[in-house]
């Protein structure tokens, strides 16, 4: 469903240690930047040693491979995004002519403007922001308090509840799609339909075992004395959570927040099913609907819509690159 992590088990989970610690150094260190010899900044050696590369012939091969890789990466991963951003700056006629130009001859922002207003991308953009914000808030509220109870209050049968939650990580989202849809369209006992309601995204999203696992592991490392001190000072459990635990947990909360927002923004299949009213759709679902609708949308406008949908994720990535990548690689290092 909304959980993007449904297929990844605990192994790929960022632990509190890498999240709290300084992010691993990335990029060439000053030593590398100053010398023209390919020397590893960190001093750890890999398959090929620095001495090996010091030989002139090897150095030439190294720089040839390096240049080739830089160019290939630009062509494979950056150029498609560049094409997307600039194709939308062409007029429909220029776009149809398809003379491959690296730089647009003239810049027309009309497609972006029309996409934003006529295609109503603005509306779907705001919808998605609203869903992502609500989903983020609910995930934090529900999962933080559950993980806090599991870690620090240790109730009877807490272990069984935790195991039940973790088990859902192993359930492929696809297998639950149909019964989850039927559940949301008629909640058991309550008989309320969440179809076309943001709660249809938010509540299933809050059942996120990945969050609970990560938070619990982090809370486990907060010393009990800190909490005892708070309770001696007369703080209630809730006050302890808000005043002591949460401020200590900022790094892990940041990781979870990023994953929550990214997950909500990228989700497609579940919102496609739950939000059937075109007016309430997310940006992803609306783009799909517009691409298959009978009314022809000019391709430049469509591409402008794609660019607009991509921008928040790219900005988020560039800002929180360290969080995202260190969270991702922490799992692999463990193995």
């Amino acid at each position, binding site marked *: 469903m909304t959980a993007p992590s449904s*297929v*990844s*088990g605990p192994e790929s989970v960022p632990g509190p240690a890498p999240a709290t610690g300084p992010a691993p150094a*990335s*990029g060439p260190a000053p030593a590398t930047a100053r010398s023209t010899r*390919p*020397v590893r900044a960190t001093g750890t*050696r*890999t*398959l*090929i*040693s620095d001495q090996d*590369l010091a030989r002139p012939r090897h150095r030439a091969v190294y720089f040839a491979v390096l240049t080739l*890789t830089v160019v290939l990466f*630009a062509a494979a*991963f950056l150029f*498609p995004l560049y*094409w*997307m951003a600039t194709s939308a700056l062409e007029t429909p006629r220029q776009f*149809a002519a*398809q003379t491959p130009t690296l730089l647009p001859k003239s810049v027309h922002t009309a497609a972006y403007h029309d996409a934003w207003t006529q295609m109503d991308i603005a509306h779907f953009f705001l919808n998605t922001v609203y869903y992502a914000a609500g989903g983020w808030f609910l995930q934090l509220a529900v999962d933080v*308090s*559950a993980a806090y109870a*599991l870690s620090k*209050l240790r*109730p009877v049968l*807490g272990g069984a509840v935790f195991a*039940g*939650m973790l088990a*859902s990580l192993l*359930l*492929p989202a*696809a*297998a*639950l*799609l*149909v019964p989850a849809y*039927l*559940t949301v369209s008629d909640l058991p006992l309550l008989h309320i339909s969440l179809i076309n309601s943001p709660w249809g995204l938010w509540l299933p999203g*809050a*059942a996120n075992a990945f969050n*609970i696992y990560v938070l619990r592991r982090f809370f486990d490392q907060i010393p009990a004395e800190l909490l005892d001190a708070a309770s001696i000072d007369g703080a209630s459990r809730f006050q302890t959570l808000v005043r002591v635990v949460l401020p200590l947990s900022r790094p892990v909360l940041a990781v979870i927040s990023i994953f929550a927002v990214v997950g909500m923004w990228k989700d497609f299949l579940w919102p496609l*099913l739950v939000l059937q009213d075109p007016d309430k759709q997310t940006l992803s*679902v609306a*783009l799909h609907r517009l*691409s298959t609708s009978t009314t022809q949308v000019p391709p430049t406008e469509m*591409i402008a819509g*794609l660019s607009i*949908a*991509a921008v928040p*994720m790219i900005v988020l*990535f*560039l800002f929180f*690159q360290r969080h995202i990548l260190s969270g*991702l*690689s*922490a*799992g*692999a290092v463990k*193995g």
Partner: protein
Amino acid sequence: MATSLAPPRPDPPAAPARGRSTSHAARRARLRRRIADNATAYAFMAAGIACFAMFSWYPLVRGIVLSFQQDNLITPPQWVGLDNYHHLFADPLFWTAWKNTAEFTGLALLLGYAVPFVIAVLLNELRHFRAYFRIAVYLPVMLPPIVSVMLWQFFYDPGGGLFNTVLRGAGLPTSQWIQSPHTAMLSLVLVSTWANMGGATLMYLAALQAIPGELFEAAELDGAGIRDRLRYVTIPQMRFVMLVLLLLQIISTMQVFIEPFQLTGFTDPSTITVMTLVYRYAFAVNNDFGLAAAMSVLLFAVLAVFAACYLRLTRETDR
């Protein structure tokens, strides 16, 4: 307390009656506090338990029950025994969907499994622009999947699409890409690999960086060349990560949906997959939720095998 279960014994003379009554009261107070603590804890967990019960545990049971029912959300559900499963096995699309899903998974593994490994080994040897490489390879992973898929839909356009334009410019033969049943599946795999390979690449890279450098030094001192070092040091050291990623990748690629859904639709027999067929049964044709649930149960059973392997693997290494 261990003593609480012991039968009442005559008190030792040293214990005054007053002391006994306070310990009794203390025990009762402790019990009361424990009940209160548990109540507080469950109050904190209530929302979480409700969400999991409603949207994870209950749907699992409901899905299995539903696969033995006929349900279209309009008339009340009816028990039909194994009818849904019989119906599935009789539907030629069912077998096509499995064949296509296997083909997609196989191709996705060939590309999406080998390529990230090779790239990671290469990147680990490069001493420059490391941040650039990592950001570039992961950028597509950040894009909403529908954006990647629709973008490639423009690239695949047989007339003026980017790929054929470039191929024509280079004097190479062009392709019909998603519009030909011969190349459609490969086209789906290509976009899927492009959009998803960043994660695997960076996980391999992290694992490569964790290999102790002494191993390579020792191998070199023993006279091992680059190829031998790769074969006898790198690959054995990476075995665990490679196996974990293999299982995770099989599990996620078998659930492929958005690529065929957007690029070729859910009717084209050359690319219909298990998930698009589930969608078709449940939401596109006649709301046959029982049939779709039966299909989901079968998919679940297949994926459960891989999930079990994954669990065993990670458990074993945890010990």
